[in-house]
């Protein structure tokens, strides 16, 4: 007599066995953004977003001509909105990559419909975050000095090295799982066309043999293993750009984990928002269900609690000593109290409540929570940066930073560039990982299926290798 567990496993194997209707449904849905011509709404959105990006570039040119003061910077507010943008954008990228890597390493089969979008989001946001270093530099033409004359005692050099390494890893992590899909995609677009040729090159002539799959699986495991500590190192080094200065409010040992958790928290939130937008835009409800959002919501809430704990730990430790507490007073009750308490309410209490309440534990509720977290965490970065930067060390006179149209336009351009680049990217790339979706089947793409079950199904669905191949 078969036990209930065995029965369930057998059912799962049956469910993930090759299913022609599932296969065709997955292919049609994943290729929807490529094969269908973009509608009016797509063009309107792309045009509006492009306008914002162009306006941002114009504002940056104005800033280059008129100096950093035109963006609100001065000798006291020497670091402000742009470094917050760098930290926030690279942070969300980290979240996208790590969410995908962790789910891949832990064999979560339900990740299948989500990985492509989160890896794409990670790639796009790291490029935008990296680009924000240029407006942050008053003299961007000096950027190459960091390569030509590196000062290895400066955390900024290590920032550059870490971000460059992470960008490379993210690009590879995005491309490799794409290879099997490109092999499928090349047969689904007009034969002999430009796209078919491009897909054919990118597919590397993939045939899906057992050896090829084993190779790709091994390499992806290695890269997933590398990308997690790499992303931790990127955000640790970013935090040391602050923490290794002699400024109260920045010179904190808690900063590396504080930054890493903030990145994961906001990154998971942006994964939720991205997935919701593409699910709605391309009608992927059949594949990306409420259960996916709820699971991501749980992850986000857990990270939110850890981040709240680190925020308290940071303020309590320094506030209790009472030596350099000006920035804490400014943050809690002074000039920065409104943004700080906005973060507490909109970035912690409300999102966690939305996850906890059964009524709001669905795709919409989690997306609202995600939007709130992304906005609040950007504001939180401003609250971390400005009070400490403007706190007087010499004269007793607080500095001040004022947002100007230049800094606001440049920042909005970065925000607009995320959906813009994602919309363009997914005109050429399948929305979901076809290969992974077919591998795990309809049940596996929603529920968690054990590695062993998946392995058994894989054995069943992939033809036995020839003797030559087995060698």
């Amino acid at each position, binding site marked *: 007599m078969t036990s209930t567990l065995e029965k369930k496993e057998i059912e799962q194997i049956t469910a993930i066995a090759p299913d022609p209707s599932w296969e065709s449904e997955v292919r049609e849905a994943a290729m929807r953004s490529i094969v269908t011509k973009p509608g009016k709404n797509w063009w309107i959105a792309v045009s509006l977003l492009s306008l914002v990006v162009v306006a941002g570039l114009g504002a940056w040119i104005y800033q280059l*001509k*008129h*100096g*950093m*003061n*035109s963006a609100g*910077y*001065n*000798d*006291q507010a*020497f670091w402000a909105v742009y470094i917050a943008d760098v930290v926030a954008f690279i942070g969300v990228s980290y979240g996208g990559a790590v969410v995908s890597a962790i789910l891949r390493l832990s064999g979560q089969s339900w990740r299948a419909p989500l990985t492509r979008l989160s890896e794409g989001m990670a790639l796009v946001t790291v490029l935008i975050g990296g680009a924000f270093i240029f407006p942050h530099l*008053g003299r961007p033409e000096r950027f190459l000095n960091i390569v030509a004359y590196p000062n*290895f*005692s400066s955390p900024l050099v*290590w920032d550059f*090295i870490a971000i460059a*390494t992470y960008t*490379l*890893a993210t690009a*590879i992590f995005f*491309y*490799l799982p794409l*290879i099997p899909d490109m092999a499928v995609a090349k047969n689904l677009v007009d034969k002999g066309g430009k796209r078919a040729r491009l897909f054919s090159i990118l597919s*590397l*002539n*993939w*045939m899906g*043999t057992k*050896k*090829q799959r084993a*190779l*790709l699986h091994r*390499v992806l495991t*290695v*890269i997933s293993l*590398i990308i997690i500590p*790499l992303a931790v190192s990127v955000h640790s080094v970013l935090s040391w750009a602050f923490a290794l200065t*002699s400024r109260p409010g920045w010179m904190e040992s808690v900063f590396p984990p504080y930054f890493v958790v903030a990145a994961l928290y906001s990154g998971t939130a942006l994964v939720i928002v991205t997935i919701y937008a593409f699910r709605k835009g391309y009608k992927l409800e059949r594949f990306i269900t409420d259960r996916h959002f709820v699971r991501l919501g749980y992850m986000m809430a857990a990270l939110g609690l850890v981040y709240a704990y680190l925020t308290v730990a940071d303020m309590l430790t320094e506030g209790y000593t009472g030596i350099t507490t000006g920035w804490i007073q400014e943050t809690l009750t002074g000039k920065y109290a409104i943004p700080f308490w906005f973060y507490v309410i909109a970035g912690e209490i409300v999102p966690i409540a939305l996850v906890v309440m059964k009524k709001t534990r669905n795709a919409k509720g989690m997306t609202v929570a995600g939007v709130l977290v992304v906005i609040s965490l950007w504001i939180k970065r401003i609250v971390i940066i400005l009070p400490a930067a403007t706190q007087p*060390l*010499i*004269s007793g*006179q607080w500095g001040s930073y004022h947002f100007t149209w230049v800094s606001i336009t440049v920042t909005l351009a970065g925000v607009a560039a995320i959906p813009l680049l994602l919309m363009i990217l997914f005109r050429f790339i399948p929305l979901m990982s076809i290969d992974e979706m077919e591998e795990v089947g309809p049940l596996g793409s929603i529920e968690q299926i054990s590695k062993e079950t998946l392995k058994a199904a894989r054995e069943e669905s992939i033809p036995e290798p*020839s003797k*030559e*191949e087995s060698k």
Partner: protein
Amino acid sequence: MKKLLAFLLIVALSIFGSSLALAAPAASFSVTQGSGDSLNLSGSCGVGNCTSATFYAKSNQFAGSNFMQIGQAQANSNGNAQISYTPTWTGNTPFKVDFLGTSGSLVATQTFTFDVMKDPSGFPQSAIEFQRPLDSTGSILVKALLTIVALVWITLLGSFFLVVIRVPKLSKQASEEK
């Protein structure tokens, strides 16, 4: 003729005198070294109807060719206002003051150039400029970190090229077997 000359002289003196009487006292502005590293910026709008003064400095580092605001002060009943400011740079620095009236309109403006000689000493120089040593432990740490970075790059690129090279080869093998 003498009468005409006398008349012209009287007219000229009258015009000069009346212009002297009508002219408002000019706005003044000066920058002096204060205690420690601070500078005293004090100005007078010359008339009693200005309410506040905004002070600016021109620093290439932040404002390009523009003035950047460094402080504000209320003007007293005589139109005088002053602030204390500690610059974080040295060199010939143009300062400016704008006196504003009750409606917020600009009443007077003056500039003054002051050669800032002293680096701020309120914060220990060592903490700002101290170069972390790279000749002993630091040097070993840098080498170790660069080695790790190199290994990561080799692994990433190696994995990438392994797939790019091996996948087409395996496909070729499989097709030949068929």
